[in-house]
């Protein structure tokens, strides 16, 4: 299991990376931590002709929060983001998601943005990012643009990025005080890939839920928002009944595929259980903050 040959390039800045992508063409891939890409290359399931390493670009390294949310540069490592005080304050659902993603040594090397750009629909980080909401900053030879998280994931390992574009950063929107989050996944062993997961946020005000986000992973070709569940939650009082109804709505209408990890029917069942439990946790946290 050795990687096929490729040509390695190192970008000193976001602009240089964009220029290299433009120059090298469709067979070039961004290399950040490589924790998703390199296993695929070793398995010879991916064979890019060119890799552009962006981890040494100083303008991609940052992480920090301001009024606009939590900004995460494309070179920021998962473990750094997971433990960062700004993440814990601004986007704890992301921290929870990262803590479930891979093992610590993998998170030392892997990046948050890399996981989002890889767009594995079963992965933790994309689901949490979509659940909290935010924007993806994409840069190509033609300049930069912002893509809402809602529009970024288009299919299995497929995103709204155009050819020659890379993600330079993501911004995770801040939610107001009174927000609670829940992130739960089910995997067969503690360290194996999740079969299904739920990332939820709710905001309560005056004892009622006035904002809710429910996103499922592992059940569709993208991290899947469940508007029917959110509609049930908004306006209701946090309760076991409301969460069960929302969980049922979240699982209704999804048609997950079967694979060696689990059947579609099992995934659907898990989606419901995990959503209900994640909402229960989120409500406790929302209450605690209020």
């Amino acid at each position: 299991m050795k990687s096929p040959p490729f040509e390695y390039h190192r970008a000193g800045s976001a602009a240089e990376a964009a220029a290299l992508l433009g120059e090298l063409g469709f067979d070039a891939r961004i290399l950040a931590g490589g924790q998703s890409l390199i296993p695929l290359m070793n398995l010879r399931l991916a064979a890019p002709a060119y890799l552009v390493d962006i981890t040494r670009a100083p303008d991609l390294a940052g992480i920090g929060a301001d009024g606009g949310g939590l900004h995460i540069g494309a070179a920021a490592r998962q473990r750094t983001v997971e433990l960062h005080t700004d993440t814990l304050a601004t986007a704890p659902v992301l921290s929870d998601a990262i803590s479930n993603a891979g093992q610590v040594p993998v998170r030392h090397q892997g990046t948050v943005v890399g996981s989002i750009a890889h767009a594995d629909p079963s992965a933790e980080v994309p689901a949490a990012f979509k659940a909290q909401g935010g924007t993806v900053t994409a840069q190509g030879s033609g300049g930069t643009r912002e893509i809402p998280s809602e529009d970024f994931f288009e299919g299995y390992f497929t995103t709204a990025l155009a050819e020659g574009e890379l993600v330079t950063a993501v911004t995770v929107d801040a939610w107001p005080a009174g927000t609670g989050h829940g992130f739960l996944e089910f995997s067969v062993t503690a360290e194996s890939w999740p079969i299904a997961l739920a990332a939820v946020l709710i905001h309560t005000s005056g004892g009622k839920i006035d904002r809710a986000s429910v996103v499922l992973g592992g059940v569709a070709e993208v991290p899947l928002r469940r508007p029917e569940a959110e509609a049930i939650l908004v306006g209701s009082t946090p309760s076991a009944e409301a969460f069960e109804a929302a969980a049922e709505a979240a699982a209704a209408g999804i048609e997950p595929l079967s694979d060696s990890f689990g059947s579609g029917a099992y995934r659907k069942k898990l989606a419901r259980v995990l959503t209900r439990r994640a909402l229960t946790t989120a409500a406790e946290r929302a209450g605690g903050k209020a």
Partner: protein
Amino acid sequence: MSTHDITVTVNGTATSASVEARRSLADFLRHDLGLVGTHIGCEQGACGACTVLIGGRSVRSCIMFAVQADGAEIQTIESLAPGADLHPLQEAFRRHQGLQCGFCTPGMLLRGLELISDNPDLTAEEAREGISSNMCRCTGYQYIVDAVLDAAAEMRAEED
């Protein structure tokens, strides 16, 4: 295909080499530097036999290209006991029989070292959770947990 000149500091010694871009860090350490204590079990980042420390942080050297490590400070198992005496963590593994076939052991030791350095007072639960990053097929992990805890206690005592 491309080759690159890299400089890395391995176990305190700066080394320059020319590597093919696809050369994994694990293969580089094993075959180019002869540091065969870093083992290869799966080459997909699952098992952790290839764990090394870069800047004191554990990484999987089988899913990292050597060229990515250019400029890095790398620590492998060979650094733990350069002389006659074993490192306290190695001694604890020996005392508790925290190994059988020995194949996961270098990765476990380096990961254990990181855990203790991050949290010298770690609990059994924290030790177990910490080493769950690395597979062991022989021991069922229990004596490894014992060894990590015992070594942490010993290293705390040495600090005092």
